């Protein structure tokens, strides 16, 4: 028989309400990122529960795969969609929401009552036997004997996943990227030799050498092409005249 130790009970009654509240909050909060963070918390709590209930492997996997990788994937997807994007809450099919809520509550209630009837007042059985050699060790034994065939087949599943990710998201280059040699030749054969030495670096000869400040050319004029195109597109280019040498305040004052 499995005896529940008091600290485990304390931990359960401390974490379980938090997990349930976060799970409900995940559904109710407006911002997708908040929802994702709440989900991460639910996952971590579940991992703690698993480990506390002697399912060490499951707990570790929960952390490594779900909290680590799947959660990261969720966040990336949010970023792909845009953090500020919010779903339209209008119903496409009229009256679907009340039907869905009723069905979900009915189904959930049915499930809870059935499982309650089946489990309440009964003891868990078999855990001590299953874990007698250590949780992970026993799992390894099963994985490499009884389930060795499905285990090997899973590798094919992983290949399919990688293949699918590549097919759907990888933009195959139709033209190979220009090598440095080709780029150099193109620069010298270009219209003007002015760019042959490459573009000036941002901030050079200016007081400020952050990347958002255009370089000053020897004649004192600013060189906007020294700024990365991304920064230009973002509108993050500062006016470089304010950093010209003549503008610099040369007086030295003692720091207060």
């Amino acid at each position, binding site marked *: 028989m499995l005896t529940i130790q008091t600290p485990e009970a304390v931990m359960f009654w401390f974490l379980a309400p938090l997990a349930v509240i976060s799970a409900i909050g995940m559904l109710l909060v407006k911002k997708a990122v908040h929802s994702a963070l709440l989900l991460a918390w639910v996952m971590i709590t579940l991992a703690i529960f698993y480990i506390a209930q002697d399912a060490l492997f499951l707990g570790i996997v929960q952390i490594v*795969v779900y909290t680590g990788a799947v959660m990261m994937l969720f966040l990336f997807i949010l*970023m792909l969609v845009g953090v500020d994007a919010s779903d339209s809450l209008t119903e496409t099919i009229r009256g679907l929401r009340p039907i869905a809520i009723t069905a979900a509550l009915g189904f959930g209630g049915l499930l809870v009552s059935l499982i309650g009837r089946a489990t309440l007042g009964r003891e868990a059985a078999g855990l001590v036997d299953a874990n007698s050699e*250590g949780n992970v060790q026993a799992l390894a034994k099963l*994985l490499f004997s009884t389930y*060795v065939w499905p285990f090997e087949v899973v590798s094919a599943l992983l290949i399919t996943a990688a*293949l699918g*990710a590549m097919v759907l998201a990888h933009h195959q280059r139709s033209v190979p990227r220009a090598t440095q040699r080709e780029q150099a030749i193109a620069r010298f054969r270009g219209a003007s030799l002015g760019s042959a030495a490459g573009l000036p670096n941002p901030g050079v000869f200016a007081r400020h050498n*952050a990347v*958002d400040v255009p370089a000053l050319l020897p004649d004192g004029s600013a060189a906007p092409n020294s700024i990365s195109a991304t920064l230009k597109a973002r509108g993050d280019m500062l006016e470089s005249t304010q950093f010209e040498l003549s503008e610099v305040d040369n007086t030295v004052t003692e720091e207060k």
Partner: protein
Amino acid sequence: MSANPYIPILVIFAIGFGFAAFSVGIAAVTGPARYNRAKLEAYECGIEPSPQALQGGRFPVKYFLTAMLFIVFDIEIVFLYPWAVTFDKLGLFGLVEMAIFIGTVFVAYAYVWRRGGLEWD
């Protein structure tokens, strides 16, 4: 020892929290606090942070590909874990099975690598 096995964990938690609280507190109390505008300026490298990210903060789909590939190999690692704790008992058979498993998933790696899935351009 018959004491509760959770007590050492609690002690570790207490020490951890205590150290963090102490470090933050002592830095605030003893450190000099002189304001200088240049301290907050982007210096030598970096840019002034902009309030609004490009394209409304949307990431390119390339990140998704990377994350997907990470998950694939992450799950491969999950299968390594039970083998790693018992490889001495599983013996040669376990080694061969694991080699086949890793070799098979490596085919996916070869595909991703050759097709430029790991390049960032």
